[in-house]
């Protein structure tokens, strides 16, 4: 297995021949037939270790990337309508954005939730909201991604409870839980419990899904937020994969064999505006993951070594000035994701430097992907930039820079990436590096070395401020509180108390998996806030030391 194949092209041809292909004419506009991949016979091929050129032999010839548009705002009923619009418009995966209170495990009637309910995403308090969210959507047939971290186990439990009450067994559910708590401490900052206690919940969800939800991706290891918080591309790459190694070590410590859970790990990267650097980043990511999984963690299953990832275009690259220009930025970034071989893609809307997208802006963002997919022919050939002297060199450079950072994390953890990641968080190492890089970028902008169209150059047109943006009124907040009050009034209170009591008992014993208790609590309409508060009673709460 470790020796390179004597004939890489033959091996690839065999795998390609076994793939089912999409029905499309694989040729240029003027009729020149296109090979599925180009390169020397003894070179690297997609679908073969170390997967630099792609995880699958046939790549987009079998299946285009999933056009997965992130959506969520207001009440579950509002978001349900947006989901149905996405499905009608040809989107083929759902991705749920939760509001800030939900992300932090607070109910909509919590005093801290004031002004935030339904604003950045959908408000979910109980199973009743989860039912509204997916009403009329067949969860056995569409995959659902949930961007949730600190309360990930709680929302997964509610999702399972909802699906099962709608008649879809958990084993049939396909989708992804973000569940990447390490990057919350490093970058996104939506944390609740301290790092080590948080990792116990990650372990529980990984073990639970490995045993009971074979189609579910338990963690989406996310560089997106690390980059948005200001890291460089190399830091995004290294911190993300470093976190991935930490989760692998965590699950192995819990006694799971690496090939039992690693195939269900997926990744989530940013597509920023530096076109070739982004493509090199994705290529390096696949190669590094494959090598570490095989050599350091002893994976033998191909799927454990194949890095699959979701991409989102860079929110931070969007400007409030001349917002229509954001369509162009997003198109270029999306193209980098596709040329880099992404498995799914979210394109930001042009109005997102100002607010959540309007329906029209979100549709245009999806159209951007459809133009790339169906008009440009770029998806016909796998890894079309492979073999470019420039892109290969940049790929090697990204890999080398990432390896330097891994060495540092490993050193902090004295030979454990898991310990290194936690120590690095506790010592503010990741946070400090990200803040330094963000400041460096800002200074380059202020010195005029970094040009942003419409912001520090080409300002004509800035005075036109014509874009209609989505307004979310406080009515949604009031509606959601009322809804929560009603659910609490109608539920069986003793059953809720019993369920929370059991959750507290289970939480005390670190050997117990908390998922069954969370599903039971969800089924009796315990709220997200109640479950999180119960666990916080055992785990404590994390407070970040403020540093500039």
């Amino acid at each position, binding site marked *: 297995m470790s020796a390179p194949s004597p004939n890489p092209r033959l091996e690839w041809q065999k795998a390609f021949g076994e793939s089912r292909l999409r029905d499309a004419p694989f040729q240029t506009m003027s009729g020149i037939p296109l090979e599925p991949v180009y390169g020397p016979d003894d070179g690297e091929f997609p679908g073969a270790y170390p997967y630099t050129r792609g995880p699958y032999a046939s790549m987009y010839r079998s299946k285009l990337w999933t056009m997965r548009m992130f959506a969520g705002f207001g009440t579950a009923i509002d978001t349900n309508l947006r989901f149905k619009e996405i499905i009608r418009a040809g989107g083929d995966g759902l991705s749920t954005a939760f509001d*800030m*209170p939900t*992300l*932090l495990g*607070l109910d909509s009637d919590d005093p*801290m*939730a*004031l*002004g*935030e309910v339904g*604003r*950045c995403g959908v408000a979910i308090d109980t199973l009743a909201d989860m039912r509204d969210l997916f009403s009329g959507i067949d969860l056995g047939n569409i995959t659902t991604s949930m961007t949730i971290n600190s309360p990930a186990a709680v929302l997964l439990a509610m999702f399972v409870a909802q699906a099962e009450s709608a008649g879809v067994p958990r084993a049939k559910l396909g989708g992804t839980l973000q569940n990447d708590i390490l990057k*919350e401490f490093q970058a*996104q*900052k*939506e944390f609740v419990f301290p790092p080590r206690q948080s990792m116990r919940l990650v372990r529980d969800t990984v073990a639970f899904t490995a045993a009971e939800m074979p189609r579910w991706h338990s963690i989406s290891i996310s560089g997106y937020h690390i980059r*948005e*918080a*200001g890291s460089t591309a190399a830091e995004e790459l290294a911190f993300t994969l470093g976190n991935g190694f930490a989760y692998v070590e965590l699950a192995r410590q819990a006694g799971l064999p690496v090939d039992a859970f690693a195939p269900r790990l997926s990744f989530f990267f940013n597509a920023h505006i530096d076109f070739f650097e982004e493509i090199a980043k994705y290529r390096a990511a696949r190669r590094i993951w494959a090598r570490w999984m095989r050599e350091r963690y002893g994976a033998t299953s191909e799927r454990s070594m194949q890095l699959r990832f979701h991409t989102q275009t860079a929110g*931070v690259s969007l*400007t*409030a*000035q001349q917002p229509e220009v954001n369509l162009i930025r997003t198109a270029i970034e999306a193209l980098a994701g596709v040329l880099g071989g992404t498995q799914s893609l979210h394109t930001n809307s042009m109005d997102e*430097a*100002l*607010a*959540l997208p309007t329906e029209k802006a979100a549709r245009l963002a999806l159209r951007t992907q459809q133009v790339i997919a169906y008009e440009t022919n770029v998806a016909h050939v796998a890894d079309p930039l492979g073999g470019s002297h420039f892109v290969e060199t940049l790929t090697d450079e990204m890999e080398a820079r990432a390896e330097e950072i891994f060495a540092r994390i490993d050193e902090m953890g004295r030979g454990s990436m898991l310990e290194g990641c936690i120590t690095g968080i506790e010592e503010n190492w990741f946070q400090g590096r*990200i*803040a330094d890089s*963000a*400041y460096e970028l*800002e200074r380059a*902008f*202020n010195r005029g070395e970094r040009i*942003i169209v419409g*912001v*520090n150059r080409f300002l004509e047109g800035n005075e036109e*401020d014509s874009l209609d*943006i989505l307004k*979310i009124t*406080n009515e949604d907040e009031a509606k959601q509180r009322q809804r929560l009050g009603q659910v609490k009034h109608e539920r069986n209170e003793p059953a809720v108390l019993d369920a929370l009591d059991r959750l507290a008992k289970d939480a005390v014993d670190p050997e117990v998996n908390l998922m069954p208790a969370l599903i039971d609590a969800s089924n009796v309409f315990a709220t997200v806030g109640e479950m999180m508060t119960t666990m916080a009673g055992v785990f404590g709460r994390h*407070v*970040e*030391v*403020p*540093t*500039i």
Partner: protein
Amino acid sequence: MAAIRVLVAKVGLDGHDRGVKVVARLLRDAGLEVIYTGLFQTPETVAAAAVDEDVDVIGLSMLSGAHMTLAPLVVQAVRARNSDIPVVVGGIIPNQDVTELLEAGVAACLGPGAPAEEVVQTVITAARGERRRQAV
């Protein structure tokens, strides 16, 4: 003349701290004395910290869309402590919200993409404006 003291703060549940940290460093490099509250503050804790630290100006960083609710509450909490420390709001603040925020007592707003110079000048102007009023 003593350095201007500024409290930069995050209120509510918004964890986006890239902006607040960049602005804190910009202000520090411009010679201001900067104190950062950390995340997840309430209008009350921000007002209390501002008064305790005797700052000249408060800079609120808001990216979650809750500015229309929370920024006026910060102003009110400061005024309730008999203080007229000015409050500058920066972040994802759509133009159409600015008038209402100013009417609610916010001293100035900084939208996305505001250059460093404008950020520093706005904060200094807000701080000095307040001092002049105190001197009258």
